């Protein structure tokens, strides 16, 4: 009993310490705002009032959470075996692009067939794009972090090439976006909000990831590789197969986020479909320590911050960068906290 109480106490202290350190991040950014003659209390008030103060704000937070959760799982699955996938942003773009191809060329298909096809295309697009770094990692030991990161630039440029080129809507007065998708290719919205059926992809991915991790041999072996790759190799676990599998599934989920963005929110492909969802999703995954259920919580937190960032741009004319600084500081704090608990290198 005593032991148990001790553990519980430690956990309480842990949570308190964590909250205190996150408050530090807020204070640091507040000081930065003050030194530039801005009122931090007003800014924070606006961030939380705008996102949590109304049903509209809350629904928009959920809209942000959908791609964040998918990109977070895309980071978390490979991260469980020690791989860093920073390429969710690019995989999201390619997924969106493949789904767009489907929506533009198969637009006359009935909705019941078309939508599953688009989901599949979005997933495949992201998975194929994630296969590139996975392949190089397996065949040549190329560092997957740098490779996925640099491929983000490639993906965004490919998308820009398509929307500036052959996919450009002839009626767009030369704006770079595609034709609007037919109704059959659109995901449904709930009520008056912009929350769309993509929410179920995200929640489904999280639940499946959780179950796979806890209840299957696949998840067990994944965790072994993450804990000790050398032991896993000697135990005969096919590490290379897992590298390709986890990166491709992760990429596919990020691609699904891209498909949901173009088929629900935007209704067409355009540059800037993602406001850094891939990178923010990466942070979500790390803040949640790659734990599937915590991902929902952290996606909510960062969803609030990122929506608040949009709000203060409009109402207080403060740059979105403030929210980025805040997120980065929180990231640093989590990393430091994580490492402080470790004994050895």
């Amino acid at each position, binding site marked *: 009993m005593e032991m148990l109480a001790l553990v519980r106490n430690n956990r309480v202290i842990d949570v308190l310490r964590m909250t205190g350190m996150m408050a530090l991040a807020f204070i640091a950014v507040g000081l*930065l705002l003050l030194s*530039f003659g801005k009122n931090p209390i007003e800014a924070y008030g606006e961030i939380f009032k705008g996102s949590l103060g109304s049903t509209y704000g809350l629904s928009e937070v959920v809209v942000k959470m959908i791609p964040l959760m998918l990109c977070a799982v895309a980071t978390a699955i490979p991260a469980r075996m020690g791989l*860093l996938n*920073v390429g969710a942003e690019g995989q999201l773009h390619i997924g969106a692009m493949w789904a767009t191809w489907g929506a533009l060329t198969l637009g006359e298909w009935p909705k019941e067939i078309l939508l599953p096809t688009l989901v599949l295309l979005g997933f495949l697009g992201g998975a194929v794009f994630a296969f*590139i770094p996975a392949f*190089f990692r397996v*065949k*040549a030991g*190329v*560092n997957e*972090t*740098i*490779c996925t*990161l*640099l*491929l983000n*630039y*490639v993906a965004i*440029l*490919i998308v820009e090439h398509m929307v500036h080129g052959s996919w450009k809507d002839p009626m767009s007065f030369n704006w770079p976006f595609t034709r609007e998708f037919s109704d059959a290719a659109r995901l449904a919205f709930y009520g008056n909000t912009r929350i769309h059926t993509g929410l179920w992809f995200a929640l489904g991915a999280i639940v499946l990831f959780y179950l796979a991790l806890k209840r299957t041999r696949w998840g067990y072996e994944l965790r072994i590789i993450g804990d000790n790759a050398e032991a896993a190799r000697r135990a005969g676990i096919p590490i290379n197969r897992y590298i390709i599998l986890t990166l491709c599934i992760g990429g596919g989920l990020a691609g699904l986020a891209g498909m949901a963005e173009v088929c629900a929110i935007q209704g067409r492909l355009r540059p800037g479909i993602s406001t850094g969802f891939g*990178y923010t999703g*990466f*942070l979500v995954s*790390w803040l949640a320590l790659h734990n599937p259920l915590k991902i929902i919580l952290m996606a909510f937190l960062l969803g609030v911050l990122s929506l608040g960032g949009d709000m203060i741009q409009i109402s207080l004319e403060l*740059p979105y*960068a*403030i929210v*980025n*600084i805040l*997120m*980065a*500081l929180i*990231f*640093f704090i989590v*990393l*430091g906290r*994580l*490492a*402080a608990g*470790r004994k050895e*290198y």
Partner: protein
Amino acid sequence: MIGIIESILTGAVRSGTPILYGTLGEILTERAGIVNLGVEGSMVTGACVAFITTAETQDPVLGVIMGALAGGLASLIHAFMVVTLRANQIASGLALMFLCLGVTSFIGRPYVGVRITGIQTLTIPGLSDIPFLGRIMFEHDVLVYLAYLSAPLMWWFLFRTRWGLYIRAVGENKLVAFAMGVRVQVLQYSVIGIGGVFSGLGGAHLSLAYTQSWVEAMTAGRGFVAVALTIFATWHPLRGVLGAVFLAQPLLSASRFRPRGSMCPPTIFICCHMC
């Protein structure tokens, strides 16, 4: 024809300079066993601070100094994270990048579109009269010359001095280095700091000489190209020079063919070469 090749190579030397600075800094850091993915962050900080200083004081020399110092300071955050707290090196580097991109985009916002007199081209008399090579190598600004002098200096420092030996020893085996009497943590801190100074210099060259302007996130992945180049150069400063010029070439031609600086060709190039 010769004229075209000449101008292409001249551009390659110029646009390769920020990447070369980043690479040299990263080679030094990685030789001491620290991977710093925050090069991108240090570089963008250097570019921003150098530009702001120059815009306020009209003094590009002060700008370069401040930019280099800012790059070094930024990378010390990474040093604190990975040396003192022993955090994950890759994740900490990425966090540094996010932080620096955010901070510079905030403090640099009033300076977007501001015009400055940056670093002027300094033609070296005599040497620039060499046919072909003269124009390619000796009609640049001071930071370019400094970069190409730094590479052999770095080689000499790493492979011919006691301190270089210590750094490599720490990178190979920290415990042995510690037993040898090297103060491992102090050394790693200084090496990360100096690496950041190099990245800051690269950023300063970018904003004060190459574009002579400031836009947020203007490094556009050059820091990561530098990290990739470090691997490509197999952690050797002199091979880094070669790589910087070769890699910068597709980067430059890409920015000529496309209105926005494209990172596509160098990425493919890196992927091919890492195999």
